[in-house]
């Protein structure tokens, strides 16, 4: 796979050169830049800035090219020369075939100085081919590599011991999809190999195959059957220790007159591992019914009954669902949703006992053409466990404003207020969080554009921290489609309870962008 990635630029250049004689058109941005970073503090606390590196950078962004014969290439090669490179390349022809290759890197920092860190390399490739309009073959593969030093403690107050991490995994899949006049049959096979360089005991292999179908009943096209059958198995290479499952799902969808819809779903899953010494069945039945008055009103109600049975213990759950949307005026929309789930131990024992969960969401949106939209909403989630005297409640209020079609600038902004309350058997964790975001981008004036972005967080009560991420950006267009771009970013994080949890980063990025057009 690595060899393929090394050859990608060569293939790309070859295609670019050969395209001249029969090119239809294309474009993209060639970007040469320099990133300067000045930071201070605990590098492990600011996730937003983990993946930035300083130094000169080369990118080719949004490159696309169409040939007269319908072949297309598309490419996004960001920071080719830096450790945070993010490269993607696609070649294909609509309705005939497609190939894509992607690779990117990500680092994660675990301690104050950034000495403990891990690096993840992910490379993937895919291929599909249509021998006829009814048949599609596809295949894909990916290679994931993680190495470095991790610290296991997830509480920043503790100085955890460092542990080395080094593992690789490869995934490969093939499949076929056949479709004809509203019918579809889909089959795929996937396999995974995982090797751990630190602990070979963890090396394992996985496989999955999946069959799917979707079929309107002949002469009763309003009645649609669909289903899935899936087998999954993962096995430790050393001990042949196994984890496996079989899943089947079937549904009947009836589209009745007057925009009435009824959907019944049956689900069965049997799973077991050598460590459980039992097999567990999950069986579920769902029924949804919905009514829609186009462009005016819609309502859906549903019920689900499911059983989790491992032959020693059995949990039964009843769930109810209700949602609706209403458009009293074309510009205004109101949506609500409510779900409730009650789990009961029917037989045997479960550590967490009976449990109730509920969720409610409601929001309204006002849209005005040639201006933008305003959205305000509320969401609440609750989990209650009487046996453990545990209760978790989570509320969120938010509003968002988009002004997209103004003459001078575009604006998007919003504010969210969260309140989380986790009351446990022996302790309580409570926090409030306020989040504000703003994005302003000016329209072009004499080749000049400017913009500003802000994300502000403030967590309080059992937490006491604050973060501010700001971006200032400006660009000047010159000599046709060329641009000079200056971006200044600030990342700041402060934890007022744990005083070594602070971090400030100033980043200046300068880019010269050559706009390509063929």
């Amino acid at each position: 796979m690595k060899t393929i990635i090394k050859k990608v630029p060569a293939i790309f250049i070859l295609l670019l050169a050969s395209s001249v004689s029969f090119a239809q058109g294309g474009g993209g941005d060639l970007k040469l830049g320099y990133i300067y970073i000045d930071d201070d503090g605990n590098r492990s606390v600011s996730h937003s800035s983990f993946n930035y590196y300083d130094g000169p950078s080369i990118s080719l962004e949004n490159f696309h090219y169409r040939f007269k014969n319908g072949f297309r290439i598309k490419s996004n090669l960001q920071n080719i020369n830096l450790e945070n490179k993010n490269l993607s390349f696609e070649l294909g022809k609509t309705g005939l075939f497609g190939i894509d290759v992607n690779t990117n890197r990500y680092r994660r920092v675990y301690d104050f100085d950034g000495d403990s860190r891990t690096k993840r390399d992910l490379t993937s490739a895919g291929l599909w081919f249509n021998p006829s309009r009814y048949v599609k073959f596809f295949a894909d593969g990916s290679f994931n590599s993680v190495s470095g030093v991790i610290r296991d403690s997830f509480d920043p107050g503790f100085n955890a011991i460092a542990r080395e991490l080094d593992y690789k995994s490869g995934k490969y899949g093939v499949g076929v999809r056949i479709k004809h006049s509203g019918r579809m049959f889909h089959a795929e096979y996937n396999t995974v190999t995982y090797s751990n360089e630190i602990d070979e005991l963890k090396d394992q292999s996985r496989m999955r195959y999946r069959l799917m179908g979707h079929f309107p009943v002949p002469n009763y096209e309003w009645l649609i059957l669909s289903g899935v059958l899936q087998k999954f198995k993962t096995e430790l290479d050393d001990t042949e220790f196994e984890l496996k499952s079989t899943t089947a799902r079937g549904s009947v969808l009836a589209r009745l007159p007057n925009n009435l819809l009824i959907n019944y779903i049956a689900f069965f899953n049997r799973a077991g591992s050598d460590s459980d010494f039992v097999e567990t069945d999950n069986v579920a039945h769902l029924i949804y019914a919905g009514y829609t008055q186009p462009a005016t009103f819609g309502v859906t109600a549903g019920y689900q009954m499911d059983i989790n049975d491992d032959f020693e213990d059995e949990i039964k759950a009843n769930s109810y669902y209700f949602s609706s949307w209403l458009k009293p005026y074309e510009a205004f929309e109101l949506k609500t949703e409510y779900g409730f789930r009650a789990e009961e131990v029917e037989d045997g024992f479960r550590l967490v006992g009976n449990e109730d969960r509920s969720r409610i969401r409601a929001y309204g949106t006002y849209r005005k053409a040639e201006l933008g939209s305003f959205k305000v909403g509320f969401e609440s989630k609750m989990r209650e466990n009487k046996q453990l005297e545990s209760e978790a409640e989570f509320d969120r209020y938010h509003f968002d404003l988009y002004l997209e079609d103004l003459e001078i600038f575009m604006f998007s902004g919003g504010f969210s207020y969260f309140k989380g309350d986790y009351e446990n058997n022996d302790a309580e964790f409570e926090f409030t969080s306020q989040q504000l975001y703003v994005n302003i981008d000016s329209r072009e004036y004499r080749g000049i554009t400017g913009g500003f972005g802000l994300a502000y967080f403030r967590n309080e009560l059992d937490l006491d921290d604050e973060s501010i991420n700001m971006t200032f950006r400006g660009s000047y267009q010159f000599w046709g489609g060329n641009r000079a771009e200056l971006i200044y970013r600030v990342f700041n994080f402060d934890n007022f309870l744990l005083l070594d949890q602070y971090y400030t980063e100033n980043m200046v990025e300068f880019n010269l962008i050559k706009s390509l057009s063929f």
Partner: protein
Amino acid sequence: MKKNNFYFIGLPMILMAVCFLFPSNVCPQDQADCLDCHENIEATLLNSAHEIQTVKESKESMKATCFDCHSGWQKHLDNPTAENIRTGPELSLADQTDICGGCHITPHQVAMASGDPHARADLTCSSCHMVHGNGNEYLVREDLDNYCVSCHSSVAMEFQRRSAHPVESGNIRCVDCHDLSSIENAEFKIGFDWSCQSCHEEIAGPFLYEHPVTYSHLVEGGSCMECHEPHGSVNDRLLKQTSRVLCLQCHDVPPGHITNHSGLGSRYACVQCHSEIHGSFSNNLLLDPDLGDKMFPDCYQSGCHSVGN
């Protein structure tokens, strides 16, 4: 229950096979007349699967014709008004499903038209896809890797929290976890191949000693999201709560753990000792295999405890 596999698996498969053998027919018509009036429309479809072709060509390739999507064309040819021909965006989901589903019968389309929350919220194919004048992949309205956040703005904010998955840096995309081509798990998180283990294989198991909550097939289980907030969290490691409190959402504190070290957990988090929290190969208490070495300097060399005490 175990002997009923036929009803769950075999019978539906037989029914589907029967249905597949008797499909209905679609009869495309010539479309040259359309371009007499809609002369610029051809350019808006160039190089897409909906590119204008002759009927003969369209039969041999994937390309669609005007008539595949716009029914009512017979009346429209006689009397060309906007009212007597069907166009996409103003139609209901069911009608759009009929049109698009004529060709686009994929697991994604099936999921959206049946149990998917988008469908229940009055979103249609054209809410995200635009057929004319769009060269984006899958004809998504905006060529953004994370197109979803244009509606899910609150989720977008979660990715900017102190601890978050690297969506902002472009390392993963929404669809890497939210598999739009899956119809079997639209309402469920039951099963082993959940999204998380695609990247985090090292904690996916199987383990000789499992932490039951990580396996949603077990009666204890609710999967990774019992402890983690997948988009972003105010706590480190995407955790729902800080470490000391998190474990207590399910576990009582064993009496031996309440010590003279100024009370529970003031010095050590649970995972300091129970470091194999996702599963262990060495012990059913999920303890660190190197716990003895790890604790020695703090507990014994400090002078507080002697070995064997």
